[in-house]
């Protein structure tokens, strides 16, 4: 309250689906906006403009930066993954990583058939916000299901396999200059700690395997969370601009990799 009074305005008016920053700059969830468009309604100009601004921001910073640095559901799925590690739960069955793109297609087709933005009733992102800000309990079961699914059924099921929002941000991230780079891949000692913490471990393989000449993790499934940077004792990884030619070519890796 004192902070808000001091500022004299709302920093963010609205919610994560659609808001006004400092009462002037519209920001909106691109997936929610796409759903409105698909439902056959022409959205307000501010919603469209807000989506364009948000897409621009994440295209610059790295698409799935949203997932690991902004999305509150990530805290729940990280907790599930930490629980799995602490309890040393056995590896689970795999489901295809690209299921999220089918989810994205489904989320965009449903408004055509129904005329409603169906996904927004189930989307766990606004549910976390409503729960924390209003104490609204309806929909909390979805968060519980996500936690139990991630912990006991399929590891990283939600964020790395199913979430349509993550799928859209992954597509946006394909043009982003910010990437994690294995700048000291030759120092890798194959301890596999990065594979253990990485929520999208398939993205690590191309930069660490023997003969690799490409240091940048270009797969846009990478959420740029920096866990690999934190966990690596030989300091293999760093955030880098992929258009910086200094890092774009390297000597083929000679390490005998177990990958």
């Amino acid at each position, binding site marked *: 309250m004192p902070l808000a009074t001091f500022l004299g305005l709302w920093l963010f008016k609205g919610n*994560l689906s659609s808001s006004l920053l400092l009462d002037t700059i519209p920001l909106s969830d691109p997936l929610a906006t796409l759903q409105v468009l698909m439902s056959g309604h022409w959205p307000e100009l501010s919603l469209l403009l807000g989506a364009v601004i948000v897409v621009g921001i994440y295209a610059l910073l790295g698409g799935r930066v949203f997932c690991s640095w902004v999305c509150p559901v990530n805290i729940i799925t990280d907790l599930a993954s930490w629980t799995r590690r602490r309890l040393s739960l056995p590896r689970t069955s795999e489901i295809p990583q690209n299921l999220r793109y089918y989810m994205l297609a489904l989320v965009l087709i449903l408004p055509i058939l129904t005329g409603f933005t169906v996904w927004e009733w189930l989307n766990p992102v606004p549910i976390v916000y409503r729960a924390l800000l209003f104490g609204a309990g309806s929909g909390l079961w979805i968060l519980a299901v996500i936690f139990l699914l991630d912990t006991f059924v399929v590891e990283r099921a939600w964020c790395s396999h199913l979430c349509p929002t993550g799928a859209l941000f992954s597509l946006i991230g394909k043009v982003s200059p910010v990437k994690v780079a294995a700048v000291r891949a030759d120092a890798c000692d194959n301890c596999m700690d990065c594979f253990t913490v990485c929520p999208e471990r398939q993205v690590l393989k191309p930069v660490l395997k023997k003969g690799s000449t490409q240091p940048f993790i270009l797969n846009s499934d990478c959420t740029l969370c920096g*866990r690999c940077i934190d966990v690596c004792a030989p300091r293999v990884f760093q955030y880098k601009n992929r258009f910086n030619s200094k890092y774009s070519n390297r000597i083929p890796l000679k390490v005998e990799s177990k990958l």
Partner: protein
Amino acid sequence: MINQHRSASKSTTRFGHAAVTELGWWRAHRFLILRRLSQLSVLSLFAIGYFFRFMAF
């Protein structure tokens, strides 16, 4: 040193122990802490908005 990392991470020591030993606690948790701060900041910015609406309007 290389073997030290490997044995540390494969033994019964806590996960990520090698990184903490080598880099120190902060550098081995830097982006985790920064991410949580970022997530909670975005959340609180929206919270200020809601709170202010209820109090003042």
